[in-house]
């Protein structure tokens, strides 16, 4: 592996991060917060840019960047930024423990939205802003952002983008990588702005609108009140956020196609159809289930729509405590947690396209078993899938299950019951946020030991980067000079 290249790119990222962290500083000044908050943001900015500059000074972009380097850069970058992003919380004393702050920031960048705070409302506005802002950056990807703003990007940077943008296959929008990154970000920010605007029209304060939109855009789920969205108790807010979350769970390439007037392709897109069908089916089933248990139709529909859209996009906003729902509904939500949004969106989970490919592979296998001589090919998006893609999708599931099982075992040491332990891992690895049982939407992850908090932080990053980059980071062979 080319360590100099890795160091060079990481140092550039730190410099960019140093600029980004100045944004909450302005919020802090605006709200005339105590000096300590401002110093902590300024200190973090100074520290990260200082380290960034000193690292990049002696190393130029030497040698090539290939798949290995791309993976290492992405995974180190996410761990590194989660650490630096935690510094303002620690320095300001609002989250005094570095482990807690690391968890919170990792949860922010990975757009999980799981929190260790029992009382969110004690945080000062700048900290709340920073917390939600990490959702916005993390949603589309830190490195995609870097690619969009860096003036010079080599063609080799495609390996970074491949490692960071979720989904089994990666396609550039336009021939230039930096333009692709810019287009993605422009669409992303425009949609965020639209959400903010809609919430403002609904009468929400600016601060709340901005932060809730950040959470929805990154499909993160950090709220600024205890009880998430429930305290607003507004059908309008829930509808806007519900549709916004669903919109951010769609592959961004589709929006680009829409903009470039390929409307027909968008609506015949197979993954989109799967996604919408899954959402619709889940809403209907849960509504029916809730109506059956003494709720009115409209309340049931309202709760089930919001919760399904929040869970399937792995956002984690909540209006109702779905932990109290009947088992059938809870299991559907649990399944949705694993499905996640579409590939190329800001959501987590296994991704709809993988689920679809796996389902089709299973059907193909069934055909092969009954007709051993028949030649069966798997089609997706009107194209026959090559064996390589199928293999990587299936193997991803295998690795996913293994990793899941190991983490579940480690977490089980501190959990009272199975559903809590299982949903903890499901909620973190799929970047959802709240789980069920003792980690349900109304409680937090604060009862875990520091060791498990670090483990879960890595689980979140692993889920966001789709497991392999982090596993590669821990495999000794990659660090060899000749690998």
């Amino acid at each position, binding site marked *: *592996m*080319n360590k100099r290249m890795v160091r060079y790119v990481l140092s550039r990222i730190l410099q960019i991060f140093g600029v980004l962290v100045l944004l909450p500083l302005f919020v802090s000044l605006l709200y005339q917060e105590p000096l300590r908050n401002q110093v902590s943001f300024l200190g973090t900015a100074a520290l990260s840019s200082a380290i960034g500059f000193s690292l990049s000074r002696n190393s130029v972009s030497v*040698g*090539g960047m*290939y798949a290995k380097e791309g993976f290492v850069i992405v995974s180190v970058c996410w761990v590194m930024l989660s650490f630096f992003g935690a510094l303002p919380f620690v320095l300001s004393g609002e989250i005094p423990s570095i482990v807690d702050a690391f968890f919170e920031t990792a949860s922010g960048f990975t757009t999980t939205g799981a929190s260790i705070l029992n009382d969110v409302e004690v945080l000062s506005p700048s900290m709340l802003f920073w917390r939600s802002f990490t959702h916005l950056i993390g949603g589309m990807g830190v490195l995609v952002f870097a690619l969009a703003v860096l003036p010079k990007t080599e063609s080799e940077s495609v390996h970074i983008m491949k490692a960071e943008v979720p989904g089994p296959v990666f396609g550039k929008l336009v021939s230039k990588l930096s333009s692709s990154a810019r287009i993605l970000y422009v669409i992303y920010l425009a949609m965020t702005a639209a959400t903010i605007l809609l919430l403002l029209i609904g009468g929400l304060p600016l601060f709340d609108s901005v932060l809730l939109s950040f959470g929805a855009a990154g499909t993160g789920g950090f709220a600024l009140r205890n009880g998430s969205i429930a305290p607003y108790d507004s059908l309008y807010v829930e509808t806007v956020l519900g549709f916004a979350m669903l919109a951010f769970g769609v592959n961004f390439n589709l929006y680009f196609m829409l903009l470039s007037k390929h409307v027909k392709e968008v609506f015949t897109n197979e993954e989109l159809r799967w996604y919408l069908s899954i959402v619709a089916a889940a809403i209907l089933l849960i509504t029916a289930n809730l109506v059956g248990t003494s709720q009115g139709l409209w309340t049931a529909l309202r709760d089930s729509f919001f919760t399904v859209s929040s869970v399937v996009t792995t956002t984690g906003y909540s209006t109702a405590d779905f932990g109290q729902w009947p088992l059938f509904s809870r299991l559907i939500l649990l399944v949705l947690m694993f499905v996640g949004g579409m590939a190329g969106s800001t959501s987590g989970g296994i991704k709809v396209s993988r689920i679809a490919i796996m389902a089709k592979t299973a059907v193909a296998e069934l055909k092969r078993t009954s007709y051993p001589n028949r030649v069966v090919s798997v089609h997706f998006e009107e194209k026959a899938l090559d064996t390589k893609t199928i293999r990587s999708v299936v193997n991803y599931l295998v690795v996913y299950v293994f990793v899941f099982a190991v983490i579940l075992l480690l977490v089980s040491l501190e959990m009272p019951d199975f559903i809590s332990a299982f949903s903890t891992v499901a909620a973190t690895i799929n970047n959802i946020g709240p789980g069920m049982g003792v980690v349900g939407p109304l409680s937090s992850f604060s009862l875990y030991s520091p060791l498990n908090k670090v483990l879960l932080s890595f689980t979140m990053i692993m889920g966001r980067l789709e497991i392999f980059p982090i596993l590669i980071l821990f495999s000794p062979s990659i660090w060899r*000079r*000749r*690998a």
Partner: protein
Amino acid sequence: MNIVIAGGGKVGEVLCRELSIEGNDIVLIEKKPDRLERIINKNDITGLAGNGANYDNLVEAGVQNCDIFIAVTPEDEVNIIAAIIAKKLGAAYTIARVRNPEYAGHMNFVRESLGISLMINPEMEAAKDISKVIRFPEALSVEQFVNGKVSIVEVEVKSRGRLADTSLWQFRQEYGDVLVCAVARNNETFIPSGDTVLRENDRIFVTGSRKDLTRFYRKSGYKEEKIRSALIVGGGRVAYYLIRMLSELKIELKVIEINHEKAQRLSEAFPRTVIIEGDGTDQEFLKEERVDQYDSVVSLTGVDEENILISLYAASLGTKKVITKVSRTDLLRILGNVGLQSIITPKRIIASEIIRFVRSLGNTRGSNVEALFRIADNEVEALQFHVKSESKVVGVPLKRLETKQNLLVAYIIRRHKLIFPSGDDSIRAGDRVIVVTTHKTFDDIDDILK
């Protein structure tokens, strides 16, 4: 001697030429009449067109009365069958070329139970040579005598190095018990005398015991660090043997192979070795595979030109040891001295192997060739003789022997002791003697005399 050769390919042709020059009577069996015609026109041999494994053809070629039967057709199976039939017909010795790794594993069994005297595998021999070069990184090539006690190593006189512009008298005083036994300078190879002065870019062949050579490396500035990693480009048969040999030496390996099936097979055979599928002639690809971080690069693709280019690229990156497989050695003559270090030619290796075997059988007058190495692009031979009492050289001090020009008695081995002979020493019966010469027809120690 009467020799029958089946197969007139590259190796067959070399054998026809060299063995006929040495005075053997050769009959060549070759399938293609045109090819046969060409070889017969160029060499003093007879031949017949046909399948080398056919009973009638073998009888017609006179196998029943021949001393040696050599089967070097392209197919292993034909070679083995031909050798078996020849043996049953009454050939005294049989030699078969067998290249398939699947047969190579049971070489001894096949050889003993089928009565084939020598089974040679060019790719295996090439792999052995490569692994030797990697084990002794100081030298461009290495040949070993007397079970490895004495080696001949090839080194290049570097510009501004310590060896440049020293005469061999000085060399002798400086480095003690090692000997420069041949010098290759501008496509010309000669046996040096004490007055010879070494020049830049000379390739010199130094012989000595391993201990003395180590001292020579250290004092002359050739000492190299051990080779710990190797990048092999081309996953053919040579690579197959080489991977096994180098893995035993605990060398970190990476093999690049462009063909998917071949790469797959290699990875099945060597699950612990890193096998990469890709085009090894693509410099960008080699960069991705970190070619610059490897101690050695071995280019073994099937195309000579590609091998040469890969090696030149590796050499330009400062790779410590660059080894190139080249089949058509005339290419090298065109290129001249382009900085390729070690060159491996499987065809030549096996031709010398067979010739060594033939020569060792050819002793009629009291002493025989025990080992033979051809160095300096086949220009020089180093031979190890076992001297018997009937020999004319026994008991005469070396300075009084009237030897031919271009010849050097390098070592005498007497009862496991290595003697670095001076003019006063004399050869005794039972000694082993190593002679270095540009003459190529010696098969007896007496041949060194005028």
